[in-house]
């Protein structure tokens, strides 16, 4: 028996400490289930537990962050194996943003749904489950883990969309979501199985460099392309990129508004972060093989086309919407398109040498955009939720005369909407500006590679045009709020809700006016420290570096990977 047990590896307390934010979420789920048994079922108690769990997750994330500092850690696996979870600055950043957003959504729930909610524990179990999935999505490079994390995020989302059981639209929406999601997941898994077959490993950090070599040698490009398309399809589904976007408007319309708000940011953001990680791994992988990241130009082209279409499609489709939730759904598609644009940049900031300023790193731009987008959407949805709850109508006419009816809602709504358009002096402008800047930088850096340089410049033009288009439909709401007045009665919004919306609005204004350097720096730091070589580690944890360096197959002497230390020293 001894020998058998020696073969097994058990996590140490240090490992569990790294994992503590996720454990806190799991603990929240358990608490949500246990407490009603002891104390009786109360929606508000469940809400408080969830809020407490969110705060605890944030606190633990910060504690972990304090230790992680610069080096990434790939955890919860024996040292010899590739880590399933990567705990690095990117993951921490995303966790914090997501958890703060989740706290906002719970606040929204308290305002509107807490009174009549009968199934609080179930709601929050499902909610926290989807949050856990999203957190996991942002921290893995293993394809299997990725699939499971996506499912972990999706399955509860399907259920939570249909949470209003007696509501026909909700039932329909959740059915569409689950069917479309299931199909995407199946297709993604098919792609993953092909990738596994081609490369013999599920660790994307190993797949990427070898994919670069394959492309370089012109070998197996077809099947590689097909497998990647299938795999990315699953991610693009979560992002709701065209042509995987069909679920988005229907689901957003059918779900409760706080659920809509939650999905509009979280599922997209998690998938974007995951995509960023993959794209980054591609770039690093190519460079570690001595190739330029431009080797993936066709993939970049594909992503760029999807991004351009997504963005344009979303904006145009939003044009005639009268249902505010649906309008915001299309708006979220459009914004996903903007973010996807920067995701199509195959370039790692650490790899471009000393002359490269991190200010233009696509990753930092996207990360900061995610944060800003979360704030903008929280504000918009908070106001929309309160208007909907007050009027009972989701039509845009419900906003008529809001400026008079409740200035405390109309003004933050104005701020958030203008910020969504991307006009100064609001933070949305700066976020979008950075995205375009990253594109421009990429266009310049890849100027010598004809197709790539052109792609990025074209994307800038498309993004600019789209901003113009988006102006119209956002301004329709503004017009309804301030210029149209059909004499609906004034109302006093709940203090919490108005505070939340105003905080969002003011935050956008302040960040825009004073040029949010801090979050940007933070995002930059997290982005650029992503694959820094780790300091010497004494415990059993493997570092992110090991994710890259660990040989997939020690038994196979033919397969050698070069390390990427060169580049990273150069980047210092």
């Amino acid at each position, binding site marked *: 028996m001894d020998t058998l047990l020696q073969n097994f590896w058990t996590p140490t307390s240090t490992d569990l400490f790294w994992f503590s934010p996720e454990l806190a979420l799991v603990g929240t789920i358990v608490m949500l289930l246990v407490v009603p048994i002891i104390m009786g079922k109360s929606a508000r108690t469940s809400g408080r537990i969830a809020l407490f769990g969110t705060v605890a997750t944030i606190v633990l994330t910060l504690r972990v962050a304090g230790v992680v500092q610069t080096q990434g850690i790939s955890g919860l696996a024996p040292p010899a194996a590739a880590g399933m979870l990567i705990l690095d600055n990117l993951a921490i950043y995303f966790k914090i943003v997501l958890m703060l957003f989740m706290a906002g959504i719970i606040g929204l729930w308290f305002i509107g749904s807490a009174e009549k909610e009968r199934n609080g524990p179930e709601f929050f179990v499902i909610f926290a489950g989807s949050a856990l999935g999203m957190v996991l999505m942002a921290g893995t490079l293993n394809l299997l883990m990725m699939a499971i994390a996506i499912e972990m995020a999706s399955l509860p989302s399907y259920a939570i969309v249909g949470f209003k059981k007696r509501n026909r639209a909700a039932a329909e929406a959740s059915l569409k979501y689950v069917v479309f999601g299931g199909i995407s997941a199946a297709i993604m898994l098919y792609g993953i199985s092909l990738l596994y077959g081609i490369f013999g490993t599920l660790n994307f950090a190993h797949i990427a460099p070898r994919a670069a070599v394959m492309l370089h040698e012109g070998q197996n490009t*077809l099947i590689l392309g097909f497998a990647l398309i299938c795999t990315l399809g699953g991610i693009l589904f979560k992002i709701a990129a065209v042509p995987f976007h069909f679920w988005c408007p229907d689901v957003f319309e059918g779900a409760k508004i706080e659920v809509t708000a939650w999905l509009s940011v979280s599922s997209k953001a998690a998938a974007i972060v995951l995509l960023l990680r993959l794209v980054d791994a591609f770039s690093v992988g190519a460079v570690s093989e001595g190739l330029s990241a431009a080797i993936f130009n066709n993939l970049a082209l594909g992503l760029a086309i999807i991004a351009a279409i997504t963005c344009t499609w979303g904006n145009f489709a939003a044009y005639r919407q009268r249902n505010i939730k649906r309008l915001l759904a299309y708006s979220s598609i459009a914004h996903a398109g903007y973010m996807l644009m920067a995701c199509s940049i195959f370039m790692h900031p650490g790899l471009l040498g000393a002359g490269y300023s991190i200010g233009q790193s696509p990753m930092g731009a996207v990360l900061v955009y995610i944060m800003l987008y979360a704030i903008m959407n929280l504000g918009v949805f908070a106001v929309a939720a309160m208007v909907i709850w007050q009027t009972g109508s989701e039509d845009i006419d419900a906003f008529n005369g809001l400026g008079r009816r409740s200035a405390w809602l109309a003004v933050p709504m104005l701020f958030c909407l203008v910020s969504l358009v991307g006009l100064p002096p609001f933070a949305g402008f700066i976020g979008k500006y950075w995205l375009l800047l990253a594109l421009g930088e990429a266009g310049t850096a890849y100027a010598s590679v004809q197709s790539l340089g052109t792609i990025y410049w074209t994307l800038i033009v498309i993004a600019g045009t789209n901003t113009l288009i988006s102006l119209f439909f956002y301004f329709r709401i503004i017009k309804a709020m301030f210029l149209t007045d059909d004499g609906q009665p004034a109302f006093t919004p709940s203090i919490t809700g108005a505070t939340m919306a105003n905080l969002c609005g003011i935050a956008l204004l302040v960040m825009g006016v004073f040029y949010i350097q801090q979050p940007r720096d933070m995002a930059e730091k997290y982005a650029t420290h992503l694959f820094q070589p780790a300091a010497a580690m004494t415990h059993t944890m493997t570092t992110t570096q090991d994710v890259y360096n660990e040989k997939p197959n020690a038994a196979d002497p033919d397969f050698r990977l070069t390390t990427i230390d060169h580049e990273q020293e150069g980047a210092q």
Partner: protein
Amino acid sequence: MVSKGRTKLNRLLPTCLSLVLPAVLMCGGITMAQGTTPDAMGSGVPHFDGVQKSVSGGIVEAILFYIFGGTVLAAAIGVCVSKRVVRMATWLFGTLGGVAVLYFLLGANYLGVIQLIVYAGGTLILLVFGVMLTSKSPWVRFECPRGEMVVASVVSILLFASLTTVLVTAEWPAQSQSADGVRIAEFGKELLTTYLVPFEVASVMLLVVMIAAAYLARQDRDDSEGAN
């Protein structure tokens, strides 16, 4: 009512199933019997070998593959052409069983068993329950417009053709000759070490999903949620 041809096809179903199930059991039995070595702990753990080890020359393997692969395919096509959802579920059962046999053929014995237990025993039953619970008559059928059927067939056939082209033109490295099946012990060890995190996550996922499904499916005592 049902057309003549379809009746014929439907009669195939029991035949198919009667073919599949004993074969599954047989293969499982063979594998178990052959794979178990009474080796002591010292050299490791019980050793299961795949079928292919016992079949020299590959002729038998080829025959088995064609029989069960054919079953899988036939059942899949059966799913496609069935109009009634209960029939579809039955055909699906054929596919699942056939796939389980293919797992045995491929030396993945544990997986084959899992396939039978979880899929055939769990998932499929769930689906059938779903069918039963959601239709006034279990033989409910919704016709799909013929035009759509045509388009979908064309798309599917094109998809199959292009996939095959892609797969065939790919350069697969030489097959490894040293594969000797996976020992269950190794499998279990991997599952609880390298794949510990996915394992735990999957368990949490199942918990959450269970609660969600229970919530959605249960009849609320006094359901008076307004549409908000």
